[in-house]
């Protein structure tokens, strides 16, 4: 087990280095940051001076080596756009995105599993089929359309919820949370729904399919023959075995969550890392872009490691034959 974890960590470092190299080589094609950093009046000479000062004229391997060594020391450089250290920016904005991503995944998991199980048990029920059809909307409509539609309905017409932003947030150390204030909670509702809807659909359908499969297996038949109550069969036995594919998918979906978080954050003016990244791309704020990509790579690596560990916890069939790491 320990050797397995150590090997995963080594692989993680390799992945991050590879991402850094790829990201860095792409940056030469995203545009010229100097063009955005100086006003109309700047002369040709001034532009060249700034490029020199930013180190943009050094050859690529040197720029990359400097970058990796700085990162290892925890220095992410200064944002070209804001003139502030990138590490500060990441620290300020990460809570917003993490809260949003986490809550939307939680919403998707809870409702997805619940609705999936319900739809599996009451296969021919009207309500179940209705839920399935409506969930298709979540997957077929683009995220920004759902977001803007909800803003117009709930913020402009009904005036129940705020149309943008995080509301009042409470600072706990370096973390900021919107869950402790009323305006913060109200502000969370629409973004979480927007981001969670397509995930929920996927999980719901997956759980339903897997459950239907599990309910047909021999061990379920024997359990029924033994007289074990239907409820226990559904939740203690069948459901647990469907969780492996669900957890795998949920882990992989996390990539989509991060990606669509960018769209959601832009629509709702949510001050998170996704909005920061989009602005960095438009402004060619290379230090921020590089830091964001490294952050995403890190998140993926952690999530996949967690997914692997959850396998052990969830599926009793795996635990008996613990795989000895070679």
């Amino acid at each position: 087990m320990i050797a397995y974890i150590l090997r995963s960590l080594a692989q993680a470092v390799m992945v991050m280095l590879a991402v850094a190299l790829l990201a860095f080589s792409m940056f030469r094609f995203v545009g010229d940051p100097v063009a955005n950093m100086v006003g109309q009046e700047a002369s040709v000479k001034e532009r060249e001076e700034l490029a020199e000062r930013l180190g943009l004229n050094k050859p690529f391997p040197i720029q990359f080596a400097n970058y990796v060594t700085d990162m290892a020391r925890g220095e992410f450089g200064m944002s070209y756009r804001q003139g502030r250290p990138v590490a500060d920016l990441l620290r300020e904005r990460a809570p917003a995105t993490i809260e949003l991503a986490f809550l939307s995944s939680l919403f998707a998991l809870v409702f997805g599993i619940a609705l999936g199980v319900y739809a599996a048990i009451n296969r021919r029920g009207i309500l179940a089929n209705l839920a399935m059809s409506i969930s298709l909307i979540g997957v077929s409509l683009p995220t920004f359309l759902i977001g803007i539609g909800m803003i117009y309905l709930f913020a402009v017409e009904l005036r129940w919820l705020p149309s943008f932003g995080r509301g009042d947030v409470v600072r706990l150390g370096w973390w900021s949370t919107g869950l402790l204030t009323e305006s913060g909670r109200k502000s969370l509702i629409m973004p979480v729904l927007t981001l969670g809807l397509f995930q929920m659909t996927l999980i719901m359908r997956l759980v339903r399919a897997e459950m239907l499969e599990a309910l047909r297996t021999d061990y379920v038949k024997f359990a029924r023959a033994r007289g074990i109550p239907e409820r226990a069969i559904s939740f203690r036995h069948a459901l647990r075995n469907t969780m492996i594919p669900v957890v795998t998918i949920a882990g992989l979906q996390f990539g989509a969550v991060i990606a669509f978080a960018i769209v959601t954050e832009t629509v709702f003016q949510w001050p998170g890392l996704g909005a920061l990244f989009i602005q960095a791309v438009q402004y060619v704020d290379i230090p921020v872009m590089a830091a964001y990509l490294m952050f995403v790579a890190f998140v993926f690596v952690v999530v996949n490691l967690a997914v692997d560990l959850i396998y052990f916890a969830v599926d009793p069939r795996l635990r008996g034959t613990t795989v000895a790491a070679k």
Partner: protein
Amino acid sequence: MHWSMTRLTFALGAALALSITAADARPVKWARGADALTLDPHSQNEGPTIAFSNQVYEALTTRDNANKLIPALAVSWKLADPTTWEFKLRQNVKFHNGDPFTADDVVFSYNRALQPTSDYKGYLAGVKEIVKVDDYTVQVKTTGPNPLVADNLTSVFIMSKKWSEANNTTKVQDFKNKEENFAVRNANGTGPFSLVSREPDVKTVLKRNDAYWGRGEVPLEITELTLVPIKQDATRVAALLSGEMDVVQDVPVQDIERLKNAPKMRVTEGPENRTIFFGFDVGSPELASSDVKGKNPFKDVRVREAVSLSLNRTAIQRVVMRGQAVPAGTIAPPFVNGYKKEFDANAGAADVAKAKSLMAAAGYPNGFSISLHCPNDRYLNDEAICQAAVGMMGQIGLKVNMISQSKSLHFPVLQNVKSDFYMLGWGVPTYDSDYIFSFLYHTREGTRGGWNATRYSNPEVDKLIQSLSSETDKPKRDATIAQIWDKLRPEHLYAAIHHQMLAHAMKNDIEVPVRPDNIIFFKQVAFKKS
């Protein structure tokens, strides 16, 4: 009990205070499409940052809503000798932290704006030295006679020397430093609003400066001003319609009609100080992206004129811009010194027949192919304008391949002079034709011609342009400007499309006019009883 009496008193007091202030003054939430990049007034020379700095900081001169140059922190100015402008400063002005405003602060601020890392040095081009004569008199010495010094100073803001030294921000942000400069998120100016808090990309809160020197001259009814950047167009408009925002400065063109018809909303419109146009490469011997080999079709003025004649600017105004544009015949916006009404006469309609005959006379009866570089996130509907123009130019045989990309990719192409045919927009902050000539028509050398990607180079015109910077006799200078326009306009080096228009939307108890420089002076807002 004694504490419930205190509570009662508080409650009554609060109710009384609220009832007095509610009608005459209130906080205002101000939404923009982009945030101010920094609070340092000498760091980033761009629109939203300058518009924000104008609430907290002030300069020696400014422009009123009719574009006239008026006193701000300077009460008067005159030429002491041919190369020295003398400014008399306003007295009894204090910074937000209580420091008095004196000539020391002006000398300090201008020297700070001249540092290599400042983006505002262009406004002080030609300035040799700034000298304090006494506490309320400053002399700006120039290398040669310079008629526009006062006009150029409207965006060079004054910081407090004492405050800057105490907070270690005497230098403008240098991106090589590892530490953030204090002025990036803190501000201390003489303006009508002072900084309460700053959360970049979330909100910036300002409160009314009750000790503002201009308190009697302007309404200054807004007690608290909050700048909220909302990038997404639809969300920004929704925030106004839902009542969460009071003023939206950047209104997307497609929502103007809707906002005009919304209840309790007001929309103000006006022309901007910016023209959108196409540029031609007239210098290269052959065009890289064209199928004409061995020669450059844009070198022939007939071809350039034909392109200009093929554009139906009225159609672009009506369909692409939904009325939010003024068809232009020349790349000078109407407020600029040197503009004449005849420049834009007959700019609206296309003359395809004449254009075709010009193309045939030039030797291209079947046209040719060419690539057009276009930005897609800088000007209002820039990509859509290019798209419409491509269709129009097709009528005279031009097969245009549109290369539309983000401004970060588009502008470097122009900076490196690598385009055959491109779109550009040009604003004129000094309200003088010299600004257009220097950047767009002068040969590309030294500090001039930085945006002249046409490769046009005419030494005779260059000399005339250079003479404008040192000619202090106004009638003579204006005559030279007219002479330059008369030489340049028939050359059709640029095909002007239109002057942009701006619109602001707000709740109807506020009225904010549109200024060509797209700055809102919130100190001028007086709430209307509706």
